[in-house]
C-alpha cells in the first residue's frame, strides 16, 4: 500500500490512466484485429481488459479508503476534506469566460463517490462481459460486440472519473454513442436501427441541456472543475431575469406583469437536469429506454440498467452543491422522479414482453433515485443506484438466460421474450429461478434485502427532508410537497412489487406454455429449416445455461441480497454513508429535517414492509393461485383502459403527432421556402428581369439597314433642333455673396449667341450684346431677380431669370421668401433658374 502511494501520489494519480487505458486498448484490439484473432482471442482480450481494469480499480479504492480513514482521523472525523486523487493528462483547450480565462484540462479524479461507481462499472461490467462471452457465442459479430462493450466501459469510466464537466461530457456522449451502436447491433432490422437512432437523438436533447449548462457555468462561475465549482458557489448567487428578454420587442400579451426571475443556480441546475432526463430516461424523455431493449440482453443489463442510465443520478450527486442552492430545481428533480416512478410502473402492468417489463421497471426505479437526490438524500439516492445495479443487472441477465433457453425452439425475438410462452421454468432452470427470485424480492422491497434498505431510505428522506433557501427571495417547496412525493413513491412501490411478481409467477410458475416438451428431441438450429408459427411447437425441455452465464447471476444475486448491509440505517449500519459524507458535506448543510420526522422512521418502515406484502401477495393471489383469472376478468371489464396501458399510454404516438410532426412541418416549410421563395426571388426573378431587358433591347437589334438609317435620321433631326433653339443658362459665382454682396453671372456660350441682361421685373431694353458676364451687388437680406435673354444666330430668343438673396445668418431669406418658387436653403441661397422660353423660330 505504501509503495502504491509513493508510486501514485494524490495529485498525479496516474493509476487512473491505466484504469482507463485497458478497456480502450481492448476496444481497439477487438475492433481492428478482432476478425483475425478469432473468438477465443477476442474473449481473452475483452475479459482481461475489463478484469484488469477492475483489479486496478480495487487497488485505487483500497488506497482511497485508507487515505480517507487517515483524513477523517486527522480532521476530527468527517470534516470537509474530500479525499480526491487527481490525474491531469493534458491541457485540452482554453476558453474565455465572463471575467476570466477558463482552462479545460483532460483531467480525471477519483473520490469516494466516483470510487464506488468505478467499482460497480468495472465489476458488474466484468460479470456481464463474462456472461456475454457465452450469450453471444453464436453471433458472427462477436468481435464487434466486444469492441463496443469495451469502448462502453471506457466511456463510462471517463464519465465517472472526469474531473470537470467537459471531460464528463466526453464520457456522457461516448456512452450515448456506444449505446447507439449496441442497440442497433443487429442493424439488419430496421426496427433495431431505428431504436438506436431514437436513443441517440433523445439523448442529444439532454446533451443540449448539458451544453447550455456548461456555457452558463463558464460565464457565471468561470470554471468547469467540480472541486473549484464547489468552493466558488458565491459567484452563483445572482438573480437573472428570464422573461421577458430585455430589448426584445414582444406583443403585450407575452409580457407578464412581473418579470420572471430565477437564480443562476436554478437555471444551471435545470439545464443540467435536462441532460439527466435524457440519459436517465425520465419524463418526458424516457421513451428511448423501452425501445433500447432491441439490443442484445447483456447490453440491456449493463448499459440500460446497471450503469449508463444512472449517469443522470451520478451527475446530480456530483453537482449536489449546486442543486441544493436552488430549492426549486430540487423540487423539480424530486417531482419528476416521483411521477416517472409511478407512470412507468403503471405501464409495466400490462406488458407481456419480459424485457419490456424490466425496462419500464428500470425507468420507474430511476425515478426513485431522483426522488432520493431531489430530496437532498444524496447518499440514499445514490445507494439505490448501487443496489439497483445489482438486482436489476441480475434480473436482466436472468431474462437473458430465459430468452437463451427459449430461443432454442422459438427463434423469433418477440415470441422468445413473451411471458405468455413461458411458465413453469423453475423446474427446468433452477439457478436462474433462484437468482431471479432473490432479485425480485430485492426490487419489490422485501425486508432485509438490499432494495428494501435503499428504497426505504429514499422514501423516508423524501418524507422527512426539506431544502432550505440559501438566500432570501428563493422559492421553497411547501410542507406538503415531501409528503406528496412520499405518497406517490409508496403507490409506485406497491405497483413495483405487484408487476415484478407478476413477471416472476408468469415466467417460473404454472405450466410451461412455450412448446410441447418431447423427451429426447434433437434440438435443431438454423433459421432456414425452422418452421415458424403454425401448429404446436415441439422441442426438448428448456435447459439451464452454462456456468459463464450462471456465475454472474449468482454473484449479482448475492449482492442483491446482502448488499444493503453497507447502508442500513434501521440497523445502524452506515459504513457507506460515512464513506460518502465528505462528498456531500457541503450540500447537506442546506438540507433540514422536518421537526418530529425522525420519530416516524419505524412506522414508515412498517409501511415499507406492508407495501411489499400487499404487492407481492396480490400478485401471488392473482397469478399463482388463480392462474391469472382475475387479471383476465379485469381486462374484460375495462378493455379500453387495458388497451391504452398496453400501448404505453400512447406517448410515442403523441410525440409523433406533436413534436415530430411540428419539426417535420418546419422542415417541409424550410424546403419550400428554399425552393420557391429564396431561389424564386434571388435567382429566378433577377434572371427574369435581366432577360426582360435583354428581350427589349434585342428588339432594337434587328439587323435591317433601313431601321438603322431611320434611327440615324431621327437622331440628326433631334440634334439639329437642339442647335437651332437658343438655351439660356448661366453659371453663378456667389463666393463673395456673404461678405460683400457681389454676384457674378456668366452665361453659357453657344453658336453665335448674344445676350441681354436686366435686373428686376423691368421690361427688356437695349440691344443684345456679346457681354456674357453680368455683375450685381446685393444689400443684406435683399432679394434680387436677374433676367437673361439669349439670341442665337438664327434670331431665336429665349429668356430665363435667377433669384438670389443675401443671407445674413438670421434666416431672413427663408422668412420672406422671394417671388416665385424661391425657397432659399441656407447653404446655397441661389435658386435654380425659373426658365421661361419665349422666342420661337425666326
Amino acid at each position: 500500500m505504501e509503495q502504491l502511494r509513493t508510486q501514485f501520489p494524490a495529485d498525479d494519480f496516474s493509476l487512473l490512466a491505466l484504469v482507463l487505458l485497458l478497456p480502450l486498448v481492448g476496444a481497439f484490439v477487438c475492433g481492428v484485429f478482432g476478425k483475425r484473432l478469432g473468438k477465443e482471442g477476442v474473449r481473452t482480450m475483452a475479459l482481461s481488459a475489463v478484469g484488469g481494469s477492475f483489479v486496478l480499480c480495487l487497488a485505487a479504492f483500497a488506497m482511497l479508503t485508507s487515505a480517507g480513514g487517515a483524513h477523517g482521523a486527522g480532521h476530527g472525523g468527517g470534516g470537509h476534506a474530500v479525499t480526491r486523487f487527481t490525474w491531469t493528462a493534458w491541457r485540452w483547450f482554453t476558453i474565455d469566460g465572463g471575467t476570466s480565462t477558463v482552462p479545460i484540462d483532460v483531467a480525471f479524479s477519483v473520490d469516494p463517490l466516483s470510487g464506488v461507481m468505478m467499482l460497480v462499472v468495472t465489476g458488474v461490467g466484468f460479470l456481464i462481459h463474462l456472461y456475454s462471452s457465452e450469450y453471444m457465442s453464436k453471433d458472427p459479430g462477436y468481435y464487434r460486440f466486444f469492441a463496443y462493450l469495451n469502448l462502453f466501459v471506457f466511456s463510462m469510466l471517463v464519465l465517472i472519473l472526469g474531473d470537470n464537466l467537459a471531460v464528463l461530457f466526453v464520457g456522457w456522449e461516448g456512452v450515448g454513442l456506444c449505446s447507439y451502436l449496441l442497440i442497433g447491433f443487429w442493424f439488419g432490422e430496421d426496427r433495431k436501427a431505428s431504436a438506436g437512432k431514437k436513443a441517440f437523438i433523445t439523448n442529444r436533447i439532454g446533451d443540449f441541456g448539458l451544453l447550455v449548462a456548461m456555457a452558463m457555468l463558464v460565464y457565471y462561475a468561470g470554471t468547469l472543475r467540480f472541486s473549484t465549482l464547489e468552493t466558488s458557489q458565491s459567484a452563483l448567487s445572482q438573480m437573472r431575469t428570464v422573461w421577458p428578454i430585455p430589448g426584445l420587442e414582444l406583443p403585450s400579451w407575452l409580457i407578464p406583469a412581473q418579470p420572471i426571475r430565477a437564480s443562476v443556480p436554478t437555471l444551471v441546475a435545470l439545464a443540467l437536469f435536462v441532460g439527466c432526463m435524457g440519459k436517465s430516461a425520465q419524463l418526458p424523455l424516457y421513451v428511448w429506454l423501452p425501445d433500447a431493449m432491441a439490443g442484445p440482453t447483456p447490453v440491456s443489463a449493463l448499459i440500460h440498467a446497471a450503469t449508463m442510465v444512472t449517469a443522470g443520478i451520478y451527475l446530480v450527486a456530483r453537482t449536489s452543491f449546486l442543486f441544493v442552492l436552488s430549492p426549486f430545481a430540487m423540487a423539480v428533480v424530486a417531482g419528476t422522479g416521483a411521477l416517472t416512478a409511478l407512470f412507468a410502473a403503471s405501464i409495466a402492468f400490462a406488458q407481456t414482453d419480459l424485457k419490456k417489463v424490466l425496462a419500464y421497471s428500470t425507468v420507474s426505479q430511476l425515478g426513485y433515485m431522483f426522488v432520493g437526490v431531489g430530496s437532498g438524500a444524496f447518499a440514499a439516492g445514490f445507494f439505490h443506484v448501487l443496489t439497483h445495479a445489482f438486482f436489476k443487472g441480475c434480473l436482466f441477465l436472468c431474462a437473458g438466460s430465459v430468452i437463451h433457453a427459449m430461443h432454442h425452439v422459438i427463434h423469433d425475438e418477440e415470441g422468445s421474450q413473451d411471458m405468455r410462452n413461458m411458465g413453469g421454468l423453475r423446474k427446468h432452470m433452477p439457478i436462474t429461478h433462484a437468482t431471479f427470485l432473490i432479485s425480485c424480492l430485492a426490487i419489490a422491497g422485501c425486508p432485509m434485502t438490499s432494495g428494501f434498505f435503499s428504497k426505504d431510505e429514499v422514501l423516508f428522506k423524501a418524507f422527512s427532508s426539506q431544502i432550505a433557501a440559501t438566500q432570501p427571495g428563493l422559492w421553497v417547496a411547501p410542507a406538503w410537497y415531501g409528503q406528496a412525493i412520499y405518497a406517490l413513491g409508496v403507490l409506485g412501490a406497491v405497483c413495483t412489487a405487484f408487476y415484478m411478481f407478476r413477471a416472476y409467477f408468469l415466467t417460473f410458475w404454472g405450466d410451461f406454455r412455450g412448446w410441447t416438451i418431447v423427451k429426447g428431441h434433437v434440438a435443431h438450429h438454423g433459421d432456414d429449416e425452422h418452421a415458424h408459427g403454425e401448429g404446436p411447437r415441439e422441442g426438448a425441455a428448456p435447459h439451464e445455461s452454462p456456468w459463464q452465464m450462471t456465475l454472474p447471476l449468482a454473484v449479482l444475486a448475492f449482492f442483491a441480497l446482502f448488499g444493503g448491509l453497507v447502508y442500513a440505517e434501521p440497523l445502524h449500519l452506515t459504513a457507506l454513508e460515512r464513506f460518502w459524507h465528505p462528498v456531500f458535506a457541503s450540500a447537506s448543510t442546506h438540507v433540514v429535517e422536518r421537526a418530529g420526522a425522525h420519530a416516524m422512521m419505524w412506522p414508515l418502515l412498517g409501511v415499507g414492509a406492508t407495501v411489499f406484502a400487499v404487492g407481492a401477495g396480490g400478485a401471488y393471489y392473482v397469478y399463482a393461485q388463480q392462474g391469472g383469472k382475475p387479471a383476465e376478468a379485469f381486462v374484460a371489464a375495462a378493455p379500453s383502459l387495458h388497451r391504452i396501458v398496453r400501448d404505453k399510454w400512447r406517448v410515442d404516438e403523441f410525440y409523433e403527432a406533436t413534436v415530430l410532426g411540428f419539426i417535420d412541418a418546419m422542415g417541409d416549410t424550410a424546403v419550400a421556402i428554399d425552393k420557391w421563395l429564396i431561389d424564386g426571388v434571388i435567382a429566378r426573378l433577377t434572371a427574369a428581369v435581366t432577360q426582360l431587358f435583354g428581350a427589349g433591347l434585342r428588339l432594337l437589334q434587328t439587323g435591317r439597314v433601313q431601321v438603322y438609317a431611320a434611327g440615324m435620321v431621327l437622331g440628326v433631326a433631334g440634334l439639329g433642333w437642339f442647335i437651332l433653339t437658343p438655351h439660356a443658362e448661366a453659371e453663378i459665382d456667389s463666393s463673395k455673396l456673404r461678405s460683400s454682396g457681389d454676384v457674378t453671372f456668366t452665361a453659357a456660350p453657344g453658336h453665335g449667341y448674344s445676350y441681354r441682361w436686366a435686373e428686376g421685373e423691368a421690361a427688356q431694353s437695349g440691344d443684345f450684346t456679346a457681354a456674357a458676364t453680368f455683375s450685381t451687388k446685393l444689400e443684406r437680406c435683399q432679394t434680387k431677380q436677374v433676367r437673361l435673354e439669349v439670341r442665337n444666330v438664327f434670331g431665336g430668343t429665349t429668356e430665363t431669370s435667377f433669384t438670389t438673396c443675401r443671407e445674413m445668418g438670421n434666416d431672413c431669406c427663408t422668412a420672406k421668401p422671394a417671388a416665385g418658387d424661391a425657397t432659399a436653403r441656407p447653404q446655397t441661397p441661389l435658386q435654380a433658374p425659373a426658365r421661361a422660353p419665349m422666342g420661337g423660330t425666326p
Partner: protein
Amino acid sequence: MSLAPVIPALLAAAVAYVMPRKAATKHRIGLAAVTFFLLASVGWLWPDGTQAVAKPDAPTSTEWPYLLDFLIGFPIVAGLFVLFLPRQMPSLLRGVTYAVFAVSFVASLALLAVPMTPGWHFQHIVPWIESAGIRWHVATDGISVWLIVLTTFTTPIAAFASFGSIKSRHKELCAAFLMLQGAMIGAFVALDLFVFYVFWELMLVPMFLMIGIWGGAEKIKASVKFFLFTMTGSVLMLGAMLYLVWTHHELTSQWTFDYLALSRVVLPDTQKPVVMSAQFLCWFAFSLAFFIKVPMWPLHTWLPDAHVQAPTGGSVVLAAVMLKLGTYAYLRFSMGLFPFRSAILAGNLGAFAVIGGILYGALCAWKQDDIKKLVAYSSVAHLGFVMLGLFGATPSGIQGAILQMVNHGLATGALFLLVGVLYDRRHTREVSEFGGIAKVMPVYTVLFLIVTMASIGVPGTNGFVGEFMVIAGTFVSKRLNQFGAIEAIGAAFGVILAAVYMLGMVQKVFFGPLSNPKNKHLDDITPREALAVAPLVIMIFVIGFFPSIMTDRMRPAVESYQQQFVHLFSDTPETPLAARLLPRDMFPPSFLVGAPDAEAGGPSAVTEAATKTAAAPAKAAEAPKPRSDEDTNRARAARNEEIMQKFKNLPLRKAGGEP
C-alpha cells in the same frame, strides 16, 4: 529517453499491417507514410515540445520573406507549366501535380515553425502600381496561417481523389487544381485590397471550370449560378473598395489600397441599426460578397446546386477551403475595416446565423433525398456556427470559429470524399437507392460513422471543441447584447438537429435490410480511396483530442485582433458626420507594421525596421542586437508595451443588457 518519438513509426507500421491482404504495397506504404507524417507533425507541434520556445533569441531571419510568394506563385506557375506538358502522359501530369502539392505542403509547414506572436509574419511588400498606390503586400498571422495549411492539406487530397474517379482531361484538371490552390492562398494572405480582389476573383475561374467541365448532368447551370452569385457580391465589394480608397485619399492625399492604412479610415455613420450612411453601405457591400461566399441565408442556394453538380474533388475544395474565404474575409476585412458597423449589427446578424444558418440549414438538410445535397446543407448549418462565433467577437468565439473553419474543412471534405466513393460505385446518390450496405461495406461504414460523429460534434472528435467554444463564446458575448444567451441556446439546439439529419441518413443508407439487389455486390472501400480519407480521419481525432496545438498558436493573434476590434468599436462617437482618420496609436503597434507611411521615409525602410520589432518576442529589448538601431528598437518595444497596456485597460463602452 521517452517513447514519444517512436509512436508515429509504430502506428504507421500498425496501419500498414492492418490493411486488407489484397492491398498493393504502394498503397500500404502510402497510408503508412501519411500516418507517420501526420503524427510526426502533431508531435512536432505539441505544446510541451521545446522547439517553439527554444529559439526566441533567434533573429527573424527564420521568416523567409518570400515564403508566401512561393506558396502563391509556385502552384500557379506550375499550373501554367502543366498546360505545356503532353496530354498523352497522364502519369507525368499527375506526378508533377503531386510533387508541386507536396512541396507546397512542406513549405506551408514552415509557417508553423515560427512562434505566432501578434502581428504580421512572413510579410513581404513590393510596390506594384505605384501611381495608384497598389503594392504586393502579403503576410500571415495566427489566424490565416491555419487556413493556408488547411488549403495545402486538403487540395492534394481532393486532387488525389479526383484522379481516381475522373477519367478525362487530366491535363486541364491538374492545371485547375494547381491554380486554384495558388489563388486561394493568395486570397488568404493578401493585405492589399487590390491584390485580395485579384485573387478573390481568380479563384472563381478554376472552380467554374471544374464544375462546368467535370460536373454532373446540370453542370452548366450550376457553374453559371455559382459564378453569377459570387460575382455579384464581388462587384459591389469592388465599388466599396474604391470608395474607401478615395476617402483615404481625401483625408491624406495619398493613394493606397493597403488594408492596414485603410483600417484607419472611419467612414461616417450613425448609431441607427440600418441607415443609408457611407459606412453602412460600404460594410454592406463588403459583407454581402462574403456572406454569399460563406454562404449565409438567404444567399445560400447556389451552394447545394454547385455541390451536387461538382465532381468529388471540386466539392471537397469548395467546401473545405473556398467557403472559408467568406468567413475569413468577414473576420479580416468587414470587421477590420468597419468595426463599428460589424459590432452594432452583430446581434441581428447572429440571429441570421442561428435561425437561417444553423436551424434552417439543418431542417433543409434533413429533408434532402440526395446525400450530397444533404451534406451541402449541413455546410450551411456548420458555417452558421462559424459566423455566430465571429459575430459574437469574443476571443473564444473567434478561436472557435477559426477552429470550426478547419473542422468543417476536414469533416465535410471527408464526407464528400466518402459520398464520392458511393457515387463511383452506383452512379446515384439517392438515399432511397441504398439501405443495409453496412453488411457489404463494413470498413466504409466505420469510416463514414466516424466522420458523421465529427460532423455531429461528438466530443473526442474535432467538431465538439469548435462548437463548444463558439457556444460558450456566444453566451458571454457583449456584442450580441441581450441576445447572446438566446443565440447560444439556439446554436446548442442545432446540435440536436445535426444528429437528426445525419443519423437519419446514416440509418437509411447503411442499416436496415439489404433490399436493393444492386447493392448486394458493392465492393468495400479500396485502399486508394482509404488513402484519400485517412489523413482527414486522423486529423479529426488529433484536433478532437489536442485542439491546443492549434488554439495556442492562434490565441495571441486572435486576442490582439479582438481587442483592437473592441477598442475601435468603442471609439466611434455617437454621430460622426464626416469621414476621419484614426491616429496610429489607436491600433496595436504590431498591426500597422508595413502600412504605407509617407512621413517615415521609404516604405521598405519602415517595413524592415518595424518587422523586426513586431516579430521579436517580448523580451526583444534584452536580446543582443547588431547595430545602432538597437536603441530605436528598444524604445519602440517599450512604447509598444505601453500602448498595449493602455489598450487592455480601456473600459468597454456601455455593454448592453447582460445575458
